[in-house]
């Protein structure tokens, strides 16, 4: 069984390597097509938010319906600090992340006493209130008219103005983000989080400080979202509050659920599927119904969403994981069964 495990790990490593190769090579496959690249960049940004959310949802068991608020905090912090205060973009990005973490801390302390639906609702409320802030705090955010003229991000003094370098930058963030999340999941912290999911009182009695971990993860997910927001601001250079209201929050949640919150890859896969599905519907629906407008896409999207979740309640990664486990487990599973049988019956008497 040890051997099987090692073999599975080997396989996984190859798979990861292949994935990385595709990822790096992708721009060359779609060479020169900035449209595809920007789609990929958007996927990357969503994936960053989503990865933070998988930690929060899949491992800390907490639903957030207000994640776009943190995305917004990052975006506005970067926008304001670079455009109006003249800070370098990287510093602004870091400041945004710190700010988002602080806000998460302040919000999280009271909110995490809540559970399930109530928690979801509280985060929704938080999202609406932050949206109101973005809307009304015109001096900083430009209000509903939007914030434009955000300077591009610079690396070693060179502004990143085209899509290709930006794609690699975002990919780097995503990979680092997933790596970080994966490490957490496979550590004492991740285990503690999943334990909280299973039984709070038991985890607590075993020494797991529930509030601390929930808060830390909430803050971490806020940092992920905020970084993505900062990058977005520098990428599109124009932001407005509508990007950070409850509807985007709901979309983030949808992505994570499609991808499956049970794995740190859920954010990336969910974002990719979500965006591609949208693009695909845009291409396919007009073929089926030539005169249909975007509303048909919405109907189809809703239907697909419902069907997908009925059949894959744990998202795509859930399905993949199950297949993977079955593939690798049948071997030692048999061994365990025979072993168990022996120990239960045989040794008695």
């Amino acid at each position, binding site marked *: 069984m040890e051997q099987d495990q090692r073999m599975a790990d080997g396989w996984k490593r190859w798979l990861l390597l292949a994935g990385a190769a595709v990822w790096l090579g992708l721009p060359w496959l779609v060479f020169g097509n900035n449209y595809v690249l920007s789609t990929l960049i958007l996927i990357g940004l969503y994936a960053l938010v989503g990865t933070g959310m998988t930690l929060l949802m899949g491992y800390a068991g907490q639903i957030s319906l207000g994640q776009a608020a943190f995305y917004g905090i990052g975006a506005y912090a970067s926008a304001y600090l670079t455009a109006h205060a003249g800070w370098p973009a990287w510093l602004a990005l870091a400041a945004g992340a710190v700010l988002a973490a602080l806000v998460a801390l302040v919000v999280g302390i009271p909110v995490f006493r809540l559970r399930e639906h109530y928690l979801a609702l509280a985060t929704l409320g938080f999202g609406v209130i932050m949206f109101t802030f973005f809307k009304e705090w015109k001096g900083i955010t430009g209000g509903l008219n939007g914030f434009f003229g955000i300077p591009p991000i610079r690396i070693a003094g060179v502004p990143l103005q085209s899509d290709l370098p930006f794609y690699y930058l975002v990919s780097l963030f995503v990979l680092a983000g997933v790596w970080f999340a994966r490490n957490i999941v496979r550590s004492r912290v991740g285990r503690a989080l999943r334990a909280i999911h299973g039984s709070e009182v038991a985890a607590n009695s075993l020494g797991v400080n529930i509030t601390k971990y929930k808060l830390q993860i909430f803050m971490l997910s806020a940092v992920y979202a905020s970084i993505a927001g900062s990058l977005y601001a520098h990428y599109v250079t124009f932001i407005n509050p509508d990007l950070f209201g409850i509807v985007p929050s709901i979309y983030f949640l949808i992505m994570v659920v499609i991808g499956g919150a049970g794995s740190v890859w859920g954010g990336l896969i969910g974002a990719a599927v979500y965006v591609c599905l949208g693009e695909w519907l845009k291409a396919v629906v007009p073929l089926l119904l030539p005169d249909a407008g975007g509303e048909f896409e919405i109907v189809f999207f809703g239907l697909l969403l419902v069907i997908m979740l009925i059949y894959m309640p744990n998202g795509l990664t859930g399905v993949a994981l199950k297949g993977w486990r079955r593939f690798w487990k049948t071997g030692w599973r048999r061994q*365990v069964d025979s072993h168990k049988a022996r120990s239960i019956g045989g040794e008695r008497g």
Partner: protein
Amino acid sequence: MSAMLLEVERLSKSFGGVQAVQDVSFGVAKGEMVAVIGPNGAGKTTLFNMISGVIPPTGGSVRFQGGVINGKKPHELAMLGMTRTFQNLQLFSDMTVLENVMVGFHTRLTGGIFSAGFRLPLARREEKQAQEQAFSCLEQIGLAHLAWERAGTLPYGTQRLVEIARAAVSRPSLILLDEPMAGLNPQESKQLVDVLLAMREQGFTFLFVEHDMETVMAIADRIVVLDYGKKIAEGAPEEIARHPDVIKAYLGEEAV
């Protein structure tokens, strides 16, 4: 009395009108195995809940390792070296048996979110240690072959054992067991008794609730009897078995 590991003094708890525990005092010395018995609803679990910090008492105090622990949270107590099992099983049912037990090792590790996230050597070392400890603990209790099973699918009796392993793996100085034998047949109980006795040899201290009198008589050094929230007797097993109030309230006439 200050040599006591755990001292409970005039501990009380009332839920609205229900006086679940009333002025209960007793102590547990290091290395001792103390049983709490009493009829259903006598307040045993409530007592455990107060000692382990799950609910606050309405009166009285608890001292653990010489310090007052009233108002401390369960996780703080776990850090101090007190863990417990639950009468209504509280396993992490979606995790494997091994992982369940590894969570029990939580207090022995220090790695935080950053060392974990960046995969610092500390985190890796600790991870390995936790796994080894958990596995050897499972071996001791005879569950090693189930290490990779999902805890939720195990039969009821086995789940109890996993909970015990989980509570013991961090080698706490005191373990509270709430009906450890429930769901095991006499033969299996006997095996568990052996495990518990072996653990005592290693220096574990137990405070436990149990209805299976055979077990209680076999392993308890001292028994505390509760009835309607009050302590009605305390003493060695033989004394308790003869105690008229205990027989009347709990054991029945022709017991053991």
